[in-house]
């Protein structure tokens, strides 16, 4: 299939940079903690008390620390004291929107945005919604009656709940959208935010991914045997390892502030990285399984390179989607081998081996990790590999910390139904 060329000449598009980040993740609830976890290879995965029951075959999750949701009533929830929310703010929220609210606060602060600048911005958000609260709301309706439903029972649980909550709370008045493309959702959100700015339609757009982290958001994946049944958090997830047996679920939120370069420079913002291109494709193959040849992802990577106007040889690192499922990792390795069929092969790692798989959150979270790698000059490691899968031969999987650091990188995301997104980022150094 032919790779589509850039429809609008490079010279007519605005340049887009990332000027703010926010993290509520299994490996840290803030930039510094996340950075340390990535550099020191510290896992966010642990035995998850919600999975303790003997009938549950899955035991691990990438838990979000300092947040507790003992009941569906928001008044019973706890979160770090630095985040102050009123009853009215909490009432329409689910865990995913609460995580995202906190991550938004970090992003806004790190980008140094004024309330007026936030109001002029757009918001591209991705979440699977809260199946936990949806379940509780519907259970109430069916067992206690329609009139007993919580007034906020829709707003707090539908997938759109995320951008509904954030737009209202942060008084965002630009375009607001929710993305639902399974595990590539928030990568699509980053790409859409990038396009809005590139085309000159917005100066600032928030890209947000967020997911609940509980048994209702994670365990349904056990029915397709997609989840790891490993019980030792130091062994799983282990993308690209021969013994990988499925992904480990996680939740949390990640926020990126995308901004037009000139706008960022005018206000003297700190630039984390530049977004230089992206592409999206579909496998057109199967509702669950990825194309074994990785054809859809290969096309996405090639189109992203063309969109960014860079050569294969310039790519230093790929943050792989690699959820640690047998078929997913194999398909991606195949796609990487075919895209980089010539001599040069970029370093490859999966940060999901440390965090777990954040589903709709994954794309934005990993793009934010990539920003840290570019800005702080390190290559994230692919953790827990003791026996590399032979299919990876010829691909430099980063199994241990290396001195090499990326200047240009790709971030891959793929989802059920064969949705593929590849984002291309470049480090920002000395004004270029």
């Amino acid at each position, binding site marked *: 299939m032919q790779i589509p060329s850039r429809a609008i000449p490079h010279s007519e598009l605005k340049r887009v940079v990332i000027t703010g980040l926010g993290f509520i993740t299994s490996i840290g609830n803030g930039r510094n903690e996340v950075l340390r976890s990535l550099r020191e290879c510290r896992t966010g995965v642990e035995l998850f008390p919600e999975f303790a029951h003997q009938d549950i075959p899955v035991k691990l999750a990438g838990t979000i620390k300092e947040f507790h949701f003992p009941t569906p009533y928001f008044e019973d929830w706890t979160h770090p004291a630095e985040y102050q929310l009123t*009853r009215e703010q909490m009432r329409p929220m689910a865990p995913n929107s609460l995580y995202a609210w906190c991550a938004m606060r970090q992003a806004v602060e790190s980008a140094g945005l004024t309330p007026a600048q936030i109001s002029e911005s757009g918001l591209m958000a991705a979440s699977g919604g809260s199946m936990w609260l949806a379940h509780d709301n519907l259970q109430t309706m069916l067992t206690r009656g329609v*009139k007993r439903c919580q007034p906020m029972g829709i707003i707090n649980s539908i997938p759109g709940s995320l951008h509904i909550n954030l737009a209202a709370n942060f008084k965002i008045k630009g375009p607001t959208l929710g993305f639902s493309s399974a595990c590539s959702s928030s990568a699509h959100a980053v790409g859409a935010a990038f396009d809005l700015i590139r085309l000159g339609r917005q100066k600032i757009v928030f890209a947000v991914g967020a997911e609940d982290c509980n048994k209702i958001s994670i365990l349904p994946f056990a029915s397709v045997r997609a989840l790891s049944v490993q019980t030792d958090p130091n062994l799983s997830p282990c993308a690209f390892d021969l013994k990988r047996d499925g992904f480990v679920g996680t939740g949390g939120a990640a926020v990126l502030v995308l901004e037009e370069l000139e706008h960022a420079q005018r206000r003297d913002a700190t630039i984390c990285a530049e977004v230089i291109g992206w592409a999206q494709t579909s496998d057109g193959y199967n509702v669950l399984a990825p194309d074994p040849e990785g054809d859809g992802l290969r096309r996405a990577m090639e189109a992203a390179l063309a969109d960014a106007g860079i050569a294969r040889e310039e790519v230093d690192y790929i943050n792989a989607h690699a959820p640690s499922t047998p078929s997913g990792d194999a398909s991606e390795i195949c796609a990487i081998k075919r895209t980089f069929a010539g001599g040069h092969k970029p370093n490859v790692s999966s940060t999901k081996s440390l965090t777990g798989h954040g589903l709709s959150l994954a794309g934005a979270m990993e793009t934010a990790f990539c920003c840290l790698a570019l800005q702080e000059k390190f290559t994230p490691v692919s953790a827990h590999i003791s026996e590399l899968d032979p299919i990876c031969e010829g691909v430099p999987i980063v199994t241990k910390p290396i001195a090499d650091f990326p200047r240009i990188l790709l971030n891959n995301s793929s989802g059920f139904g064969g949705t593929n997104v590849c984002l291309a980022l470049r480090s920002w150094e000395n004004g270029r």
Partner: protein
Amino acid sequence: MNPKLTESDHADLKESLRRCSPATLAAAIRFREKGDLDALPIVVFGIIERYQPATAPVRLSAAADSMRLIEDLGLDSLTLLEIVMAIEESLKLRIENHELREIRTLRQLEDFLQAKITGEKIAAHGRHYSREQLTLILPQQPPFLFLDYVELDGDTVKGRYTIRGDEFFLEGHFKNNPVFPASIVFEALGQTACLWVLEQAPTRLAKPINSNQVFFASLDGAHFYRKATPGESLNFELSLLKLRDPLAVFAGTVTCAGGEVARIERLVLAFGDQLREEETSDAAEIARPRQIQATLPVVSRNGHH
């Protein structure tokens, strides 16, 4: 006599009154098992207190009966809905949407529940408004509020005002001979009609009417029979003749100590957010008696005839 609550009733009640004080739960049990009406305010206050935001300007314990639930106690309309649901569940009542819309103050909420439970029909006895409550609803405020009390019952509204003697205009009307002016008597009748429009028309027309959106339109067949002086109480009574968006037409009388003070054949108030100055004067034109006997022209909400 109500039967003793079962274990599952207890569990349900506990669930409905989550995060309420133990005294609230105990009062709800007393009410449900023994029908103890004294327990009612404890339950209602307990529920409101549980939902009141910590940042509210007035704490419930310090709140007067006339405290408005939304403006003074810091509750938003959704919290009010949560409160109503908790009250419904714990007291086993059903509060309809239109009933909910009419409750603005703590006192009204209590009165409403009391009436609902004892089976006394509020409508049959009318709804009562103290001067304090009236100041919360009417746009007219002291020193230009000439009502002490209003009773509203269906299409009829009755008001009362006792002439104090220290009203500012009595000083010159007349010098050394204070007589309550006829124009103010008609004004007071108009204020009574205004209350009817604000309290009844929104429900009947299913549209909100703000207190600053009610205007005097016309007065026809006004007669004045007898003067009233300080110390006397004026009684106002109005009956609705016609309600058709954006006009309400009333007939009214004013009595004092059994004698008729004044009478108005047609008092017309105009209301709505789209009414501009010229349209209200149009409405006054329309409301002339010989024209009003023909059909009232319908003015749509966007102001087009």
